[in-house]
Structure formats: structure tokens, C-alpha cells
């Protein structure tokens, strides 16, 4: 192919040679460690799937390079008058990749599909009471209560074509056997599927009829999952792929030292923290304390917080790439509490004094649980933290394991202290308050990741207000109060924001978004 092109251009003239070279440069190959397991946008609520499918499907709204919400299939939206909810005005003249027109019926159908029991993304629609089609290009989402964040919360709610799904028997996400939408797509997005071999290779090509303004210059994009980090790095350095996400921290120097490659560093929105068994009446893994749980004493929790030396962890384990966290979201996320932005200082003497005050002058032993394949350097972090705890008398019995076994252990309350990373799915502080700080209540779907059962009546009382308040200042005041309470009570020990490290060839321009999503429409191959 390229040989033919070269021969022809040699005949016609060198001008063509230049354009032929440019054309061949636009095919783009990238790799990541996990294959999106399905092409169905409603079947799984996981980052690899949603990130990949955002190139093919589109939602009513989308996030721009700086994570802000902007119109996508909806051109504008406004609160409903006279009732709670939002009205979306849809973009006209948009077609799906098979040529059929996009309208309000497709939104309605996609809502019904995504909120069905068979869909893993249905939790997004918990606040929705009713969806109404007003006309072909106007849709109302009626909510149970005022919900200023609703448009932000559905940025990954992708719209399918009703006719296509019904004609192919994909009215619902696959529950048992795969269905047509597991392997085939028909979105409105900038790219469409050319071929798919699950776990091996997936090829995307641009959608020529996309409504948006094309910023990329990719003619064909090939995705390969590469599970082994060393293999992925070798694939990049040998030039077989143009871009990989993520690369291990220890390989950064290796990539930077070579010509023609660059490392893209940023911060994810994920905050790493330690959690406590607040509601445990006694320690499970202690050799010297029985019948009581010292961590129920706020002075002991505060002592643990003062024992952690984030600067050393940063220097030794993270090569200076992390920032300490004061609360459960990083700065820049909406609702971040500027008023409470200092974290407990590293102060072993104070920690020892607090322990003595609480009646443990010689400390005590307890069990610390950590995953070893979930967060960057998670096991090493816990080893470092355990030795820092030990320096003040808190003797952590560390046990680590793969994440597939970790969540069940936490759900079964098998811990005294544990490690957790949290990325706010809605990119708002309300998310961790709802999942990590509210008293667990399965009926109200609150506190489902609050493994330690942290409970504070005032926090529970403030959450509905935070969810409903439209006035930003009043809302922030409530969030500030929650953050102040949870800091004072040391509900968690926030440690740091997890770094985000990608690597690419020098000639590739791309955008690293804080949610770790990779968007092909921002790729330029020079």
C-alpha cells in the first residue's frame, strides 16, 4: 500500500510524497491494561468501558478537556418550571452511524434501557421520577427533589438508536448471553467500530457524518489491551504503539531518557485514604487489646493521622509526584472545601501524646488491610505507613491481597483499618459524602462504601440539603460544615491524590483528562 503510494508520488512529483507521508502518519495505535469487556454503553459501569465508548456514543452532555460539562446531543438545558427536574433541548440534524436520525424517542428509549434492572448504570437514574418527551427535540427529566447536579451526573449516559436496538434484539443490555449490542455499535459519536476481537484488538475509524467540528487527524485507531506493564512499555519504545495508559511510576525515567517519547503526568481525581472500623466494638486482629476498639476514640484516630509522613511517602515511593490530601476530593473538584484545606501535620510526638491521653501510652496492635493490585504502589504504601504507625506505637499487622478478594473482605467487616481510593463519579464532593460518610442505609442507597460504618447525625442531615441546594454559596457552606466535622472526627485519613501517568511518542498530541478517560477526538499525530 504505502509502497504503491510512494511509487505513484515519485512519478507525479514530490508534493504528493509529502501528503502521502502525512496520510500514513494518521493511523494511531494505543494500548491500555484492560480491554473494554463490552460495546454496550449501559451494561457495565466501569471506567475502561465508559472511556472507550465515549469515542463512539454520546450523551446529552459531555465533559470538555478541563472536565467541565458542555452540550453534546443536548444543545442546552434548563430547570423545569413548576416541578423539580431538567428540560433538555436536543441538537437537530444529528444522525446515528447507520444513517437514522436522532430525536427525543432515542433519548426516551435509552433512558428506559439504562434504568432497567439489567443495566449496571441504573444507579445514575435513582433521582429520576419520570421522563417525558415534549416534542421531537425536547425531553424533560423529572426528579424526586431539586437536583442541580443532575446534568453533571449523566455525562456518561450514552444514547442508543431505538430503531437499531429493537431491530437487532438489543432492547436491553445483555444479562446472560451476549446480544447484538455487545459486539456492535451504532452511536452518534466521532468514531465508529471497524472491527472487534475481544481481548485482542479493536479498530475504530472516524464517523464521516459526525455533527461536531473535527479536531483530530486520525484515520484509523487500533486499540490493543496489554496486561503486562513491561510488555506495554516495550511496545511503546519499539514504536509499535503510539500511546499507552497508564505506565508504572518506576518506568517514567526510562521513557523520559529516550528520544522521541514523552510522559504525560497529571493527577487523577482519586484520593487514597485509610478508613477505620468505627462501629466495631473490638479489634479483630489485635494481640494485646481485647474487648474494646481504641479507634472509636477520636484521639487515637487523630494520633494515626499525625503519624503519617506524606512528604517521605512522596519522596520515596512516588518520586515527588503526589500532593497530600486534606479531604476526600482533590482541589479543583466542585464542592472542594477551601476552608478546610490543611491536613494533619506529621507530628510523631503529638501522636504519642494523644495515644497516652487516650490510655495507650505503649500503643497497641491492630490489623491493617490493603489491596496489592488496585492503586499505584498500594502495597508499598501500606508497608511504609505500617512502619510510620509503628514509630508512634501503633503496631499494624499488615495483610495484603488482590482486589478481587479485597472488597468481599471489607464488606464482611474483616479489618481494623483499611486502605481505600475514591474517585467521585460525579466530580463533586456530594459523591464521597453519599458513598463514604453517610450512615449506611441500603434502602436509601446511602453509605454503600462506608465499610467502617462512620455515622454522624449532622452529616446525614446535611446531605439532602447539599443534593438539593441551588445557591452555590449556601451549598458550599453546608459542604464546608461536613468536611469540618469529618476532619475533626477523623472519619478517614485522606492521604494523597493518585498520580496519573501516561506515555506517548513525541509526535502525538493528546489530552489527559483527570478522569483517566482517553478521547480520540483530541488526538493529533504530527
Amino acid at each position, binding site marked *: 500500500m504505502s509502497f504503491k503510494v510512494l511509487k505513484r508520488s515519485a512519478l507525479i512529483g514530490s508534493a504528493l510524497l509529502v501528503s502521502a507521508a502525512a496520510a500514513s502518519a494518521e493511523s494511531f495505535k494505543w494500548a491500555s491494561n484492560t480491554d473494554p469487556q463490552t460495546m454496550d454503553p449501559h451494561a457495565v*459501569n466501569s471506567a475502561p468501558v465508559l472511556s472507550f465508548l465515549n469515542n463512539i456514543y454520546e450523551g446529552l452532555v459531555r465533559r470538555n478537556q478541563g472536565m467541565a460539562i458542555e452540550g453534546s446531543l443536548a444543545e442546552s438545558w434548563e430547570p423545569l418550571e413548576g416541578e423539580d427536574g431538567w428540560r433538555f433541548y436536543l441538537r437537530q440534524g444529528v444522525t446515528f452511524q447507520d444513517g437514522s436520525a436522532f430525536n427525543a424517542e432515542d433519548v426516551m428509549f435509552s433512558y428506559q434501557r439504562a434504568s432497567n434492572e439489567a443495566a*449496571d448504570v441504573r444507579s445514575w437514574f*435513582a433521582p429520576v421520577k419520570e421522563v417525558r418527551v415534549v416534542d421531537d427535540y425536547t425531553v424533560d427529566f423529572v426528579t424526586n427533589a431539586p437536583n442541580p447536579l443532575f446534568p453533571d451526573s449523566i455525562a456518561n449516559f450514552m444514547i442508543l438508536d431505538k430503531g437499531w436496538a429493537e431491530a437487532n434484539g438489543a432492547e436491553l443490555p445483555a444479562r446472560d*448471553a451476549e446480544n447484538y449490542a455487545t459486539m456492535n455499535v451504532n452511536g452518534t459519536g466521532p468514531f465508529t467500530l471497524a472491527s472487534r476481537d475481544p481481548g485482542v484488538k479493536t479498530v475504530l475509524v472516524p464517523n464521516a457524518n459526525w455533527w461536531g467540528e473535527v479536531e483530530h487527524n486520525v484515520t484509523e485507531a487500533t486499540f490493543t489491551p*496489554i496486561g503486562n506493564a513491561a510488555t506495554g512499555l516495550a511496545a511503546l519504545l519499539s514504536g*509499535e504503539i503510539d500511546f499507552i495508559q497508564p505506565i508504572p511510576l518506576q518506568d517514567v525515567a526510562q521513557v523520559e531518557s529516550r528520544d522521541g517519547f514523552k510522559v504525560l503526568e497529571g493527577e487523577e481525581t482519586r484520593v487514597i485514604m485509610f478508613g477505620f472500623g468505627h462501629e466495631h466494638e473490638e479489634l479483630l486482629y489485635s494481640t494485646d487489646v481485647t474487648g474494646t476498639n481504641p479507634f472509636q476514640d477520636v484521639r487515637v484516630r487523630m494520633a494515626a493521622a499525625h503519624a503519617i509522613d506524606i512528604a517521605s511517602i512522596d519522596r520515596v515511593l512516588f518520586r515527588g509526584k503526589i500532593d497530600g490530601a486534606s479531604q476526600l476530593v482533590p482541589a479543583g473538584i466542585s464542592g472542594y472545601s477551601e476552608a478546610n484545606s490543611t491536613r494533619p501535620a506529621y507530628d510523631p510526638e503529638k501522636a504519642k501524646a494523644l495515644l497516652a491521653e487516650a490510655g495507650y501510652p505503649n500503643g497497641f496492635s491492630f490489623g491493617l488491610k490493603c489491596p496489592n493490585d488496585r492503586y499505584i504502589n498500594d502495597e508499598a504504601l501500606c508497608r511504609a505507613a505500617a512502619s510510620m504507625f509503628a514509630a508512634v506505637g501503633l503496631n499494624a499487622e499488615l495483610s495484603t491481597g488482590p482486589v*478481587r478478594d479485597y472488597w468481599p473482605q471489607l464488606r464482611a467487616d474483616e479489618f481494623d483499618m483499611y486502605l481505600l481510593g475514591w474517585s467521585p463519579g460525579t466530580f463533586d464532593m456530594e459523591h464521597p459524602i453519599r458513598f463514604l460518610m453517610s450512615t449506611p442505609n441500603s434502602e436509601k442507597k446511602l453509605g454503600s462504601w462506608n465499610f467502617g460504618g462512620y455515622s454522624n447525625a449532622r452529616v446525614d442531615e446535611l446531605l439532602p440539603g447539599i443534593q438539593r441546594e441551588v445557591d452555590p454559596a449556601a451549598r458550599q457552606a453546608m459542604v464546608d460544615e461536613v468536611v469540618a466535622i469529618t476532619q475533626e472526627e477523623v472519619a478517614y485519613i485522606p492521604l494523597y491524590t493518585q498520580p496519573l501517568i501516561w506515555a506517548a511518542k513525541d509526535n502525538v498530541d493528546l489530552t489527559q483528562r483527570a478522569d483517566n478517560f482517553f478521547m480520540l477526538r483530541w488526538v493529533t499525530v504530527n
Partner: protein
Amino acid sequence: MAYFILKRLVQSVFVMIAVAFLAFSLFRFVGDPITQMTGVETAIEDQERLREELGLNDPFVVQFYRFTGDMLQGDFGYSYRTRQSVGEMIASRIPATLELGTVALLISLIVGIPTGVYTALRPRGFVTQSILLTTLVGVSIPTFVIGIMLIFLFGVQLGWLPTFGRGGTVQVGGWESSLFTIDGWRALLLPAITLGVYQLTLTMRLVRAEMMEVLRSDYIRFGMARGVPMRSLYFRHALSNTMVPVITIIGLQFGGVIAFSIVTESVFQWPGMGLLFLESIRFVDIPVMGVYLVVIAFFFVLVNLIVDLLYVAIDPRLRIKDES
């Protein structure tokens, strides 16, 4: 003969059921599939409903009975993770693993047998000692280290060979093969060498030991005394007698090559059954893990059967016994 083969195949069904039983009794300790299948925001009750739907709350015996019952009827179930048919998933990955294993075995034989003979004939030569030392080092280094070293040398530094994947494949009657394109062979070379190093060393040392043994035996000495040409003595008389135990061991090892290609497949992102198995462990995809282990058990039984048949073909004494 037909009865013998049939008997072995029936036995293999029991082997597979036993493997499935062992596998299933271990799966409960692998982790929780539900938390791997659902997102963080999924409500607890939705998780519980999914658990119920998949029958994960049923007692172990019921789950095992359902799995084996379905399998005996040819229903391999569906992957928890991708929802694809497990039968199709595994079938689509078999060619990659078999081609890799076969080429690794061929490399080990083509290199191992001649070097084995050579080192037996010149046991004290400098070349022999160097070969023995090199292969000893080669066999002592773990497979994944060899793989990564080869990748960085030939893939990254020299840029001669691809670092991952199968390269160009062509469909030959539903069999996705990399043996018919240059690209396919280039991609195959490094993983096959990595996988074959251990076999190669084993073959060479086995051939060497057997050959030295045979060369000491009486009939070789008589042959020498009679003036039979040395070349004919070494390669016709001695080598063919050497091959009987070598084939047994190598044949039995082939089952292991297929099973242990997991590491090599992972290092080279080689899309075979082993890589699929690793992925399914990561996501606690129980149906895929179960079927993979049963299929591997079947391969072992099959390879053993083929070795038994080859044995008969190579060793005339067994044939005579069979006829009498």
C-alpha cells in the same frame, strides 16, 4: 487398538470431571465475581440480585452439578465478564496456543537433538562444555525474565522483531493461523523461543545422557568391531534407540508446554488460551476458568494417548507383544 483408544477417551471424561471438581472447590477462594462485574455506584441490592441470577448463592454441590451437567451436554456457559459464549471464546484462542506450543516444541527438537548428539559424542570438548553451561543458565532463569530480555534486545534495542501480539494472521478453514505470513512468523519467533528454552535444554540433556548410555552398550561395540561406518552407527543404530525414552518424556512435556504457555503468553500479550485464563482470574470469570482447566485436562489426556500410540510405532517390541 480401537478399543484401547476408546477406553482412554472414556477415562479422559472422568479425569476432566475430577479436574472440574477440584477447580470448583478452589473457585470460592479466588474472589467475588460480583464486585468485579459491577461498578462502584451499583446498589447492594442490585449486586445481590445479580448474585442470585448467576446462582452464586447456591451450595457448592449444586453449582458444580450444574456446571458439569451443562458441559456434558455441550453447553459451556457464558462469560461473566464479556457475556460471550465460553466455548467460542476458548475455541477462538486454541489456534494461537497450539501453534505457539508446537513451534516451541519443534525448535526444542530441531536444536536439542543435534546438540544432544554432538555433546554426547564429544563429551569433553570446549564447545560441549560451553553449550552445557549456556543451557544451564537458560533453564535457571525464569521464563518471564527470558521473555522480557528477548523483547528488549530484539524488539526495543535492535528493532528486528515485534514485541507483542500475533502479527499477521490468516484464516485457514476457521483456524486463525500465523504460520502463513512473514509477519506471523516474526511475531511467533520470540515467544516460541521463550517457551521452548526449557524443553530444548531438557531434550538436549536427555538425548545426551541416553546416547552416552547407548554408546557404551555391547551392540555398538560389536558394530564398531565389525567395521560398521561410525556415521551409520551413531545416527542409525544408536540414535533410534535413544529416541524411545526421549519421545516419551518430550511428549508428556508437551501437555505441560500448552498449560505453562500462560507465562509466555502474558509476557508477549499472545492471544492464546493462557492469556484468556489469566484475564479471567483477574476478573473472577468462573465459567471461563472452569472450562479452561477442563480443556487443559483433556489436552493432557490426549497427549498421553498420542505418546502411547507413538511408543508402539517406534518400539517394535511393543508391536510384537501386542500381536501375540
